[in-house]
């Protein structure tokens, strides 16, 4: 299973996947934007400001999922000492930071017309801000520590500590009385969102996930080339 992430096995596949995503991306983006901005109905309470949800919610999900993936891969890397996993976590981190920042900014833009404020030190919003700090620390570790092994160790520890924040973000709206609304979409089938809004949301999620895959593949390929370039002299 772990052999599947072996660079020499998947190098050609990465190129093919990048070309495939590039070929379908813009068509899907136009479809998703048409649904999000034109075809989906305004909310009966929030009016057209609800359309911000189509970028805010997928971004927040991706920010959370990326850090969870980084933390789990860091644990695996810590236990099994697999260097390739560190290349993957290093490639995921900027994507996670990007989407966490987008979630915070679009959340602020949604908060102003809905709550009448750009920012509140609310449990959900504050824990998202803490998540972005963990991402920054993770990325800075790789930039500032020159010895790769040490950088990997420190960044793995940061990711594992940061994992504690993930359930706090997820359940903050249930544990505390927050300004942020509780989740409208639940995996157990008790979602309170109408299908006419769920469809554009899922389409936007798909488009943003494809974008993440594209960036991840390009960054992973860059990392592989960087390592191989370093190894040429050794050979």
């Amino acid at each position, binding site marked *: 299973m772990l052999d599947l992430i072996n*660079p*020499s096995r998947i*190098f050609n596949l990465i190129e093919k996947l990048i070309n495939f995503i590039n070929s379908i991306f813009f068509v899907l983006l136009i479809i998703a934007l048409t649904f999000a901005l*034109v075809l989906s109905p305004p909310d009966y309470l929030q*009016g057209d400001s609800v359309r911000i949800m189509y970028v805010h919610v997928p971004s927040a999900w991706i920010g959370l999922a990326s850090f969870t993936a980084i933390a789990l891969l860091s644990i695996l890397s810590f236990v099994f000492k697999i260097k390739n996993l560190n290349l993957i976590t290093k490639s995921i981190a900027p994507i996670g930071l990007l989407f966490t920042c987008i979630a915070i900014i679009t959340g602020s*833009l949604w908060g102003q017309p809905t709550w009448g404020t750009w920012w509140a030190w609310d449990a959900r919003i504050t824990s998202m801000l803490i998540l972005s700090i963990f991402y920054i620390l993770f990325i800075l570790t790789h930039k500032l520590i020159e010895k790769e092994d040490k950088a990997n160790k420190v960044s793995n520890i940061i990711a594992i500590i940061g994992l504690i924040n993930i359930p706090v973000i997820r359940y903050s709206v249930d544990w505390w009385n927050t300004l942020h609304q509780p989740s409208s979409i639940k995996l157990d089938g008790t979602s309170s969102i109408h299908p006419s809004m769920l469809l554009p949301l899922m389409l936007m999620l798909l488009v943003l996930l494809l974008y993440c895959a594209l960036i991840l593949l390009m960054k992973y390929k860059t990392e592989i080339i960087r390592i191989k370039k370093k190894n040429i002299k050794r050979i």
Partner: protein
Amino acid sequence: MIQNFISMNGYGFFVWLSFAITFLACGIVYYKTYKTLKKYEKDFAKELDQLSEAERKLVLEKSKVASQFLASYNKSI
């Protein structure tokens, strides 16, 4: 109708700015990632090119990634 679509019933500023920030940020990250990848590819190809015939043969034999890279890079240029 177009006026309504742009103004989004008074929420246009917030909605359009959210989408603009999202896609602008994604565009910038894509551009930077693409540029970095191309730079590394170019440097790696140049480094392989500067090796002597025997050295290059050894590298390509030992590194599957280097041989796959060179094949796809030569195809793309």
